């Protein structure tokens, strides 16, 4: 079963990261690298990426005359945005929840969990067995 784990960021959270100490920031990044390595070693990681800040995002929509309309977005006033994601392939929902819980506990200031909200979505929909 494949699941997508979406790490949600908030504007406030993102801005407050600039006041973390370098050591706190390093610990956070090291946690993520180690976390991904563990998932890969378990044969569970399909893909993981962190995303650029939403300020640099674009929204593209097919326009009426056939020319696409490209606009800035999701908009400077956005409070929540997708910060990064994992796609994992695991035997059960329980395992996906455990992975998401571990990701959510990534260390922030003072080495304590931030904690990051992780949205969990199944990829596709198969009947339960």
């Amino acid at each position: 079963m494949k699941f997508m784990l979406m790490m949600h960021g908030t504007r406030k959270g993102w801005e407050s990261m600039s006041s973390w100490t370098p050591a706190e920031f390093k610990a956070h990044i090291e946690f993520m690298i180690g976390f991904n390595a563990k998932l890969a070693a378990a044969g569970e990681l399909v893909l993981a990426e962190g995303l650029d800040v939403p300020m640099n995002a674009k929204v593209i929509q097919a326009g009426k005359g056939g020319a696409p309309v490209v606009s800035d977005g999701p908009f400077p006033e956005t409070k929540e945005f997708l910060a990064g994601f994992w796609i994992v392939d695991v035997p059960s929902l329980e395992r996906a929840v455990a992975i998401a819980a571990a990701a959510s506990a990534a260390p922030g200031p003072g080495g304590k969990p931030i904690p990051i909200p992780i949205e969990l979505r199944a990829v596709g929909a198969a009947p339960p067995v």
Partner: protein
Amino acid sequence: MAAGGSPLLEELLREHAPRVLGALARRCGDFSAAEDALQEALLAAHLEWPASGAPANPGGWLFRVGCRRLSDAQESEAARKRRESRAGEERTEVTADAATGEDELMVHDDTLLLFFTCCHPSLTTPSASALTLRALGGLTTAEIARAFLVPEATMAQRISRAKQTILDSGQPFALPAESERARRLEPVLQALYLMFNEGHLGSSGPGLVRVELSTEAIRLARLLRAAQPDDAEVAGLLALMLLTDARRPARTGPDGELVPLHEQDRSRWDRAAIVEGIELVSRALSRGAVGTYQLQAAIAALHDEAPSIDETDWPQVLALYRLLERATGNPMVTLNRIVAEAMVDGPARALESLAELEQDARIAGHFRMTVVRAHLCELAGDRERAIVEYRKAASGTANLPERGYLIAKAARLEAEGGG
């Protein structure tokens, strides 16, 4: 002969791979090391055979090369140990003795043992399936990764972890006692069934059927049956696969869209597969102790032998679903039982049962339930509600062909009402 991956070469290698693996593992007592050695032998064959032609005894050739790799690996491991501890250890040397090697290939058929090893109880079902495809199916890691739609590196790690788990379990490479075997067969059947289903109905993406995986699962189930011919559940599983796969040509339309059972052109079903499946399940059922795979196969058989949906033996289908429901307690089975109930006792009675099933938290809100409700409303002549339910069901699945089917269904009902 064509170079590299010619189909004939592939077939030859895959035919011999399980036997050679069994003989190698028997030799060194270590499944994981034997599997590595076999992979290297297969690679060597890929490189050498296209130019030199396949050897007269392909199994013997693979075994000798595998043995050499095993002894090389042991040698370097021993050297490492000597460097580390200087303690000379007694060990059984693996030598590439051609004559005994071929004897081993002839005498033992380790197919069953390999199935038990690959589908070790401590492995998850997806891991067991992957390892079985490699060790018994002779597929490459890249092919297995493609079939399960994960990156090759992920699959490689999964397989190597699985082998490590088997190694850590410390279980010797030997057949479990006769009394243990039925229990040990369960994860084997489960892994094959997962493989078949993954191919039969992928849970996401544009393709409804990933044919190769289903075909492979059937091939492996045949292999298992040849190794364990008296087991009724093994026969039941093979029958179930054949009877389900027989409908494959009629299951999808020209654009890959889903065609449900009652709309399928039954003349396109694979008759030979149906005959074989029915014969298998009939014989298995006559043996007594009926398992869940046999029950599912028996239901599939009733559908496959009916000339049309109305001429199906629904009372019999319903009775079998009731047995299956009792045996599994799976709410999906209950849902299927309700569909059969509609055909026997009418949609009103079935809708009552559905309302009851809605109390079950394991399935409440699942889109399959909505599909069934839509279907029952349609049967009952409640067109308006059927349209609403079909639309609701469509928004509840990410399987594209299925979604397309449900949307089309709602649109058709709407057009019928307007016209």
